[in-house]
């Protein structure tokens, strides 16, 4: 009579998630594209046909051809190689800023939601202040203070990734700390830190993963914008935003200068957003 369990298959939450995610075609394709871009970026020295910063003054602004599939820029540098190498910079900005911002945000959010009271007020007012600035403006401010350069762009994007993670995790922590199973754990004497890490954080992770994916795309875009404004990667490093800025003066003459970095940014950001949506769909269903 109690045999309402459909089958005896043991399925861990992770297996259950994968079973659902496998069905999201678009997200799978997006994930595959991200994987390709990441692999190309990692293996850039092997994949890229030319040195990305070696000028070739005999081949300035060359049309796309078999030798230079994406053409060359005003210094004769191969655009394809620069786009591949640029992926390194863009992806590392995205990944590092999300890891740093996410880690800080998770800790702040957990503490804020779990303990509440004045700690919560303090952390949330700090987040409100960060939220009050438009992200890009804030990043420009940070970079203006610290000076231009890609490492400062990483700092800036990390900083303004924090409040979104913090708020998200705080919301989950607020709800989960009242969950009966958290109370049950509390009643047997589980310490606050263990409570947060073992029982609350895993419940907040789905949101963190989704937000992380969306934010990664977003941060890549911000980094590119900063570089476009000349505040990020400095010449001659190949960065997608910086390449756009370089190509701007030749828009009518050599549109491939702006086209390919633009496409790279577009595809990467879109792929991260689609992946994030797919993750959200697969994770948001209650694991019942």
């Amino acid at each position, binding site marked *: 009579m109690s045999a309402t369990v459909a089958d005896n298959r043991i399925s861990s939450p992770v297996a259950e998630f994968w079973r659902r995610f496998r069905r999201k075609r678009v997200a799978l394709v997006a994930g595959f594209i991200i994987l390709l871009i990441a692999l190309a970026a990692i293996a850039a020295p092997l994949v890229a046909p030319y040195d990305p910063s070696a000028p070739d003054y005999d081949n300035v602004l060359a049309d796309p051809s078999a030798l230079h599939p994406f053409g060359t820029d005003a210094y004769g540098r191969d655009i394809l190689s620069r786009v591949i190498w640029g992926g390194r910079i863009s992806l590392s900005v995205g990944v590092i800023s999300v890891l740093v911002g996410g880690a800080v945000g998770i800790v702040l959010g957990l503490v804020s939601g779990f303990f509440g009271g004045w700690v919560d007020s303090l952390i949330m007012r700090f987040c409100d202040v960060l939220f009050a600035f438009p992200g890009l403006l804030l990043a420009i401010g940070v970079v203006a203070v610290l000076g231009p350069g890609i490492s400062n762009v990483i700092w800036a994007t990390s900083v303004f990734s924090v409040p979104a993670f913090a708020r998200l995790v705080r919301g989950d922590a607020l709800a989960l700390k009242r969950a009966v*199973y958290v109370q049950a754990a509390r009643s047997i004497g589980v*310490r606050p830190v263990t409570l947060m890490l073992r029982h609350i954080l895993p419940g907040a992770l789905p949101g963190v993963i989704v937000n992380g994916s969306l934010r990664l795309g977003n941060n890549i875009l911000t980094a590119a914008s900063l570089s476009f404004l000349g505040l990020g990667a400095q010449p001659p490093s190949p960065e997608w935003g910086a390449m756009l800025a370089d190509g701007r003066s030749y828009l009518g003459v050599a549109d491939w200068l702006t086209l390919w970095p633009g496409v790279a940014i577009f595809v990467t950001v879109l792929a991260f957003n689609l992946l994030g949506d797919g993750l959200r769909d697969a994770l948001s269903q209650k694991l019942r």
Partner: protein
Amino acid sequence: MQAEPVLPLLDIAGLSVAFANDRGDDFTAVRGLDLVVAEGETLAVVGESGSGKSVTAMAVTRLIDNAGGRITGGTIRFRDRSGAVRDLAREPAADMRRLRGPEIAMVFQEPMTSLNPVLTVGDQIAEAIELHQRLSHQAAREEARRMLERVRIPEAARQLDRYPFQLSGGMRQRVMIAMALSCRPRMLIADEPTTALDVTVQAQVLRLMRELQREFGMAMIFITHDMGVVAEIADRVLVMRAGEKVEEGDVFAIFERPAAPYTRALLAAVPALGSLAHESLPRAFPENGRDLPPQDTVREGGPPVLEVQDLTTRFDVASGWFTRNKARIHAVEHVSLEVRPGETLGLVGESGCGKSSTGRSVIRLEQPQAGAIRFEGSDVSVLRGDAEARLRRGVQYVFQDPFASLDPRLTVGFSIAEPITTNRLLSGPAVEARVGELLRQVGLPPEHGRRYPHELSGGQRQRVCIARALASEPRLIIADEAVAALDVSIRAQVVNLLMALQRERGLAFLFISHDMAVVERIAHRVAVMYLGQIVEIGPRQAVMIDPQHAYTRRLLAAVPVPDPRQRGHERGLDDSEVPSPLRRLDDPPQVAPLVQVGPDHYVARHHVGGLY
């Protein structure tokens, strides 16, 4: 005998309903069901969770289409007002919409979620009336007021402008009924309409539904898991199990001469209040048709396991930086009680009476404002160092909902091990061995430790929670409505398990429950709580046979009796509502002193006569 057979109102033949799940294979919830409802008749559909009783109701109204299920076979013949017979299994969705309301109306279990929280009660009822009777808004509201009067809502005109959250659960369910009846349906389908209500409110609503059914002359399908409720309301009974019909018959026949073994088992598992009226000791539910001996587990002498004195827990309403605190919920007011080794103290009362808050205050899930808590003679009122360790090990809590109280992302084995590792009782492979042993003790195979909570049934999950509570070898277990969410047959098993553990280990229980019949089985002593205070406490037999407090009497009178013959003679119900424990800051409640009325039997004596 009539020459011409009366045509039934509803005639279901061979109904099958299936749900598609995301693995791609179908799950058949109802299989080949036949069912007939005559005009003006009440058919109770009884079954445990997963029996397909609600799915059947949803198939009749075709709400099943929106719930992911579909009718895979059979006919649902319904004779409408004009006398035409329609097959609801094949009716187009647009026609079904016109039938729902004027012909077939529904009342659901959860009156809060079935009402729209942002519309006033009056507007919601009026909406249904306008839709189906084409009345002006003014006329519809007037009709809504009349409907509220018919469901015995006091001051109906004033209630029209109130929002659902301003009403009590019982009042909300009355509003739902008024809404369902506003279109004068010929058939009402009520799906567990009283399950979420307190016993006294349930008794009121059941009586109301019985009267309304007569007044409106409508047929009713009453879905419930509670045999006591069936006995109160049904003309005929249909017993379902795992999507199939087990037995169907007249209510007296079902209760007095049940044919199917499942029906017999179901009836045997129903705790009947008063079955232990002539003995003072607890006695487990009969197992396999055999009565078990009463058990005497209380050990006299020595300090009590738990001693609570003048425990007071209050919750401030609205506190923050900018809002001033204006009111306070007096959840627990000067509660004193003690539990002896091997004893079960039943703590009973209706929702909001403070019984759970009392239990939660003891283990400090709520912070009490005042009072002393002693565990095995030593003070644990302040949780510091040693006291905390003693309390956390020695007192364990079992919650109402076993699914909610297990972390869904951890295996149940890990959850059971958590008290052991947290209190550093064992380490390494010894932990796993102990988990297996605990699982065996609660009647589960040790391999279940590798499963996740969603892979177990409700009863199995509660057994896991009990195993977890046993893991730190406690002296006292606080069971907070621990069997309330379980099906009757499982409930009896779990109660018996708890009693067996008490016999073997001399465990003491603080058994918090609203179910008087279960408390009668398990408790040595009973404490009745009302508005945060204990109004009566004493030996179980004395309190239940000879209740001294008016509220205890009211509570006992409201318990449904699983015997249709006892229906009808009114047992002195009143329609009053339990007041709120929410009070203004400058208006603290009066605490009534307890006066001894018998051996170990105390009753609150109030200053003001009349109202308790």
